[in-house]
Each structure stands twice: as C-alpha cells, then as structure tokens.
C-alpha cells in the first residue's frame, strides 16, 4: 500500500534553503528523467539526478549524504536539456554549499600523491578546491 509522505516544517525549511541558494523553482521538476539520461557521471552515482531533485522537492535532507551531489561537475548537459528550464547544476552546487559552509570538506588536497600533484594542471586543483572545499 502506498505510504503517505509527510512534509515536516524542517523539511520545508530545507527545501526553501535550497530554493534560495540555487534560485531554482524546484517544484517545477516533473520527474521526466532527462537529466538522468544526460548525466555523464551516472555510473558513479548512488541516486540518480532526477531522484536528487525529488528528494529536494520533498525537503529530504538525507540528500546531503548522497555521492551524487559531489559527482556533479557542473557540465550543464542536463541544464541545456531540461524541458522545465531548471538548472540542476545550481541545485547540486547549493547542496554542496550547505555542507561546505559548515567547514566540512569533501577532499583533502594533501592526500593526492606527490607525483600526481606535479602532473595535475592547476585548473584541476583550483576547480576541485572551489567545488569540494569550503
């Protein structure tokens, strides 16, 4: 039997926070799955981009525990294809920022082996520091 989804005030608050940070009208998403079909990182993800959108619509803060939001590299493939004109790259960025602003980093740049560090282009390092650390 279908379960009733209860949206608590905490859920609502989380939803509104992501709307404010991303500037996206999240309730516009009608779960068509175009973002999921367009995502190059899909094989690495634990929830699909469209599922991530659903979780945020419902204000489910458990979305912050997903790998998916960290794997989005803002390639904008879903953004240019979304029939509702939503920018999922901005939603993923907003979710990352919620965690990063608590000074919880996703990567520790010191863990990169020295020989790897020497080869990596600066844009790879600065890009990751910008997206994955606070």
């Amino acid at each position, binding site marked *: 039997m279908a379960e009733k989804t209860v949206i608590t005030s905490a859920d609502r608050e989380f939803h509104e926070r992501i709307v404010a*940070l*991303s500037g996206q009208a999240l309730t516009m998403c009608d779960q068509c799955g175009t973002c999921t079909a367009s995502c190059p990182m899909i094989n*690495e993800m634990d929830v699909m981009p469209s599922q991530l959108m659903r979780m945020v619509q419902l204000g489910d803060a458990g979305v912050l525990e997903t790998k998916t939001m960290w*794997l989005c590299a803002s*390639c*904008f493939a879903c*953004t240019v294809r979304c029939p509702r004109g939503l920018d999922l790259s*901005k939603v993923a960025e907003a979710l990352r920022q919620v965690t990063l602003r608590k000074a919880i980093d996703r990567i520790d740049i010191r863990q990169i082996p020295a020989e790897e560090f020497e*080869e990596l282009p600066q844009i790879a390092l600065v890009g990751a520091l*910008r997206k994955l650390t606070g």
Partner: protein
Amino acid sequence: MTQDNDHASREERGESKTGGLKLPYYPGCTLKTTARNLEDSALAVADALGIELVELPRWNCCGVVASLTDDDLMRHMGPVRNFIRVQEMNSTGLVEDELRLVALCSMCFNTLKQTNKRMHERPKDLKSINDLMYREEDYRGEVEVVHFLEILREIEPERIAGLVSDPLEGLKVAPYYGCTLLRPKGIGIDDPERPTAQDDLIRLLGATVVDNPRKTVCCGSYQTDDNKDAVANLAYDILTHARAAGADVVTTFCPLCAFNLDNRQRVVMERHPDFEPMPVLYLTQLMALAFGFGEEACRFDLNYTDPREVLEASRLVREGS
C-alpha cells in the same frame, strides 16, 4: 553599451576583421605551466594571422569554475578585477578602443563569461563588488569575453587557407568540444548539441573531420583529482568512439579536457590492454603544423601521448623534427 552594439560599432567604423587586430588576452594559470603547448601554438597562429594578443597586465586567477549559488558574490571578484584590467589597458593605450577580452583556455572563458553575464543581469551585484573593491576603478560592465575560436571564426576562410603551407591531407581529426565551450546557454559559442566551430577550421587545414558522437560529453573535469577511475572511464568512452569513427587524433581547446583525455589514457591502458593510444592535440597545434611552424610553436613534446608517430605515418611531420 551592449555587446551587440559593440560589434556593430566596430563594423560601422570599417575596421578590418582580419588583420591588424590588437586584443586584450587572458592566459590563465595553466597556459603558463602544463598547457604551454596551447599558448605557444595559439600565439604563433595568431601572429601569422596578424592578431596581436596583448597579455593583461597583473591578471589574476579567474577561479576556474563559475560560482553557481545566488548569494556567493565573493567568487565573482576575481573575474571582475580582470575586466577592470581591460579597461585600464584601454586608458593606458595598450590597446585602442578594444573591450573584447580573449581567452584561450575554455574553462577561463566560461568562468569569466558567466561572471560577466551576471554583472550585466544584476546591476546590484556589480555595485556591491565595485563598492567592495573601492581601491580599484569601477567595472563599467562593457567588457565582452570571447574565446579565441570565435576570433578565428570571424576571419575569412580564404585567409586561413592561404596560410596553409603543409596541408594535413589524409589526417582524420575528431574534434572534441566538451562542456565549457558549449554550455550553459547564453555562454556557449556554438550549438550545445551539434557544434561545428572546430570542424570548419579543421577542413581549412586540409584534414578530414570525423564525427565523434561523444564530442559534447563531459570528460569529468576536476573530478580527475580524487576520482581518477571515473575520469578514465569517460576518457575510454570518448576516445573509443573517436577511434571507431576512424579518427587519427582528437582535438580540444581545454587544458583540463586535454589532461583527462590524454594523461588518463595510462589508467585506461591498465584496464583495457587492447586500447590503442589516441593523440589528443590542441587545435592550434594542428594549425601551427599546417602553417609550417616547427616544434617551437607546435610543442608536440608536451603532449602525453606523443602525436608525432601518427603525424609521421601521415607524412605530416618529418622524422626527427
């Protein structure tokens, strides 16, 4: 002044689009280190075309990736400071009445342009940044961020073809576009699904364009730092599609795509022993080769997968050069 008006006014003044151009140029960090092959080849090609790329004095990091949250203005300051340098170049006479800022690195291009768009769309944000950077002159919002590929597209095709001394006949090239030249809308310089901007230039060099269905798929970007395997999987997918389409080489304009598609082939080969290495070149390296420049401009020595063997096989590079 809007960007379109800026274009129109230049044309109305009857200025040549093809020669004697002197443009502010933003190199960014990676072109001075791991992507010297992009800068050296592009500057040689620009010079041959009569385009002087004048490096921005005191340029600073663009931030690499655009800040996408609504409230994070701080990260737009870097790009804006670079736009102020462009204004200063005009007032000090380094360039004349030229507010186009040329980027060679696709990531710099994208990040700078996204900030510029936001400054155009949200004057309040521009005012906040100007107020905060009170020691600088105000950014007036008039700079136009362009990619070098856009400048190349403005040049009459005959002029480029006329500079080709060593046509790349027989070479099959799969142009790779990735993300930052194409997306998001309003930033990209070409059709985000079916781009052709590199294709036309490749044909002018005498080479054959082959179509890679993965030409617009992201290479994994900065995920290469801590998610090397995922990036290697993407590189494998993109390059095997290029190979299947008959490509001898793949071209790009992005130093991060170049790294992910080229360097990460080492990881690909560990997993797929039958994978045949695919040279990944900057399009400007092929242009420099076709224009008859030597190694000092082509800089094939800096590519991880040495392209010289493939180019020699196509009798495009003399052995030992």
